[in-house]
């Protein structure tokens, strides 16, 4: 079942840091059960940036939460350097995976100043003296480009970009291997976003960080990710090396996603696949798991699409998709 779910990049290169095997997370609300993750398999290699994209509710944050260990899967396994961490993690394991969330307005405790915010993770994960902790706070602030003079300030006195820097400093404090970045720049202006992206890339190089970059901004993904995972209603529908996934979208949902990106120049426009915005689609939703999850919105559905969830198949060693009538084989299926 996990045949093609393994590594995208041929072995020998960076070793696998995190392996996710057939992860499922069901939420039951009242009498309804939603599979936020419906069997996700994925390898994350050390030092890479893996982007997770998909519309709201597709399961991106849920996936991040499983990796962080702040939520448990219904079934499936998570391995870190080959060691299973699905159910339990020790303090050192928790130290190694950190998070930066979307809204800098709500993720920093408004009642604590920057020193208190940053001292907490330092105190938990090391036994430095008070003096050493304070020095480390100053150092962390410098690393993310905030003046150490701001140490006694409260989050509300900072701009959105500065807050996001502090959130990044907090994630760096325990010297992690992996940072889950959940929409780290979505609430920021393009200009501030550009600065945070630069900082992320610098920090990654300096500290050999591995990023799980959750976002719905595909133009950002194009420029920062090594690999992209496209989620649709809890399923991985396409996955591949960044350039390949953008230049040759195979799954119809990925094509729709790419064709929606607002761009600012002709050369970019030319890279977008076309999409039938007025194409006719099936109105009635098939029952969960019985068909391609994208079927109700897909103008390219063929009879086969209704026969179970399409499995991931490899197009190239670094590109997989789960579409029964993929974009490249359009002519073959039409006649």
């Amino acid at each position, binding site marked *: 079942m996990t045949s093609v779910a393994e590594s995208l990049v041929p072995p020998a290169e960076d070793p696998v840091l995190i392996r996710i095997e057939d992860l499922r997370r069901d939420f039951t609300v009242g009498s309804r059960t939603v599979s936020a993750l419906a069997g996700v398999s994925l390898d994350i290699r050390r030092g890479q940036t893996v982007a997770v994209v998909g519309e709201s509710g597709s399961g991106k944050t849920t996936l991040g939460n499983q990796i962080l260990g702040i939520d448990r899967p219904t079934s499936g396994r998570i391995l870190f350097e080959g060691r299973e961490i699905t159910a339990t993690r020790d303090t050192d394991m928790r130290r190694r995976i950190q998070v930066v969330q979307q809204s800098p307005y709500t993720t920093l405790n408004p009642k604590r100043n920057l020193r208190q915010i940053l001292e907490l993770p330092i105190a938990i994960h090391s036994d430095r003296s008070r003096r050493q902790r304070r020095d480390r706070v100053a150092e962390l602030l410098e690393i993310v480009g905030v003046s150490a003079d701001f140490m006694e300030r409260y989050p509300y006195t900072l701009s959105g970009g500065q807050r996001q820097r502090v959130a990044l400093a907090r994630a760096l404090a325990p010297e992690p291997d992996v940072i889950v970045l959940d929409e780290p720049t979505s609430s920021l202006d393009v200009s501030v976003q*550009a600065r945070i992206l630069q900082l992320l890339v610098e920090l990654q190089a300096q500290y050999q960080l591995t990023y799980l970059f959750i976002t719905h901004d595909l133009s950002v993904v194009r420029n920062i990710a090594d690999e992209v995972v496209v989620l649709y209603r809890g399923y991985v529908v396409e996955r591949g090396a960044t350039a390949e996934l953008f230049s040759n979208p195979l799954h119809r949902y990925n094509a729709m996603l790419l064709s*929606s*990106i607002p761009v*600012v120049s002709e050369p970019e426009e030319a890279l977008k696949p076309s999409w039938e*915005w007025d194409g006719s689609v099936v*109105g009635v939703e098939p029952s969960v798991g019985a068909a391609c999850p994208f079927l109700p919105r897909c103008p390219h559905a063929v009879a086969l699409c209704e026969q179970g969830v399409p499995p991931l198949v490899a197009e190239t060693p670094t590109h997989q998709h789960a579409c029964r009538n993929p974009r490249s084989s359009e002519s073959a299926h039409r006649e």
Partner: protein
Amino acid sequence: MNADPILTVEDLHLRIRQFEGEAHILNGVSLHLGAGERVALVGESGCGKSSTALIAMGLMNGGNMSIDGRVTLEGTDLLGLGERGWRNVRGRQISMVFQDPGAALNPVFTVGDQLVTAIRRGDPGTSRAEAHERAAEALRHVHIVDAERVLASYPFQLSGGLNQRILITMALVNRPRVVVADEPGSALDVTVQEQTLRLMKALTDEVGAAVLLITHNLGVVRTFAQRVYVMYSGTIVEEAETARLFEAPRHPYTQALLAAVPRLTGEGLPQPIPGQVPDYTDPPVGCRFQPRCPHARAACGNPPFAEPEPGHRVRCVLDFSG
């Protein structure tokens, strides 16, 4: 091309008295919309885009604010309207679409109640039954097949994309002359945003409404608008037809804004603009972009809004078009 502007904003100033002093937020904003024209107002966060829109909607009226200048809709002076006068204008001749459909729709009323009320406000002679029929018709028109079910639903029971469709329908149901759309659909996914903009284009075309689109997303501007105003720190710094603005931006701010956008062509990380939007209680004198401008020099002073080529205007003493 726009011989007869439908909405005109002239030399608009907004001052807000605050604890730190008086903030001079809008500093002589002038813009106009031709009948049926789609115009964008773009700029970084805090540049005054929403303030301009809210004044045009008569929704900016704190006791600590003073507003000067002129805003006219088909010749009617809007700044002089009282709350009574606004009732005949807002939602009928000029309406607004907000960023977050979840927040803009009232959560405790059904979609049907809200649409029916909007229709009867625009056309007080309509009976509830007639209004209900018109509401259902309007929803079917925007490709919502099960209109009756949607009318009976509360906003939280519907997806964000569907709510956005409803908001746009509501804004257009009385066939207004002008629609002000503040970041429509940007709280949603790209696919929904794209659908939202397409729908807005089709519907406003159909009723002949002009649109003032407010956004900081330059990509959205490029596909939607025919003409663009670039706003920086409470002033319009550039105005051009959309294609011209993207081909040959003249103001250093517009150029910097474009360079900050990540590109689908994958040419690497975008360039940030150094510094930040200045504090309005103590803005730089003269060109407000000067402290952040890579070309700033002593000669900058207080540049006029020049028109180096027909329809392309720029507030900068230097010419960077080459």
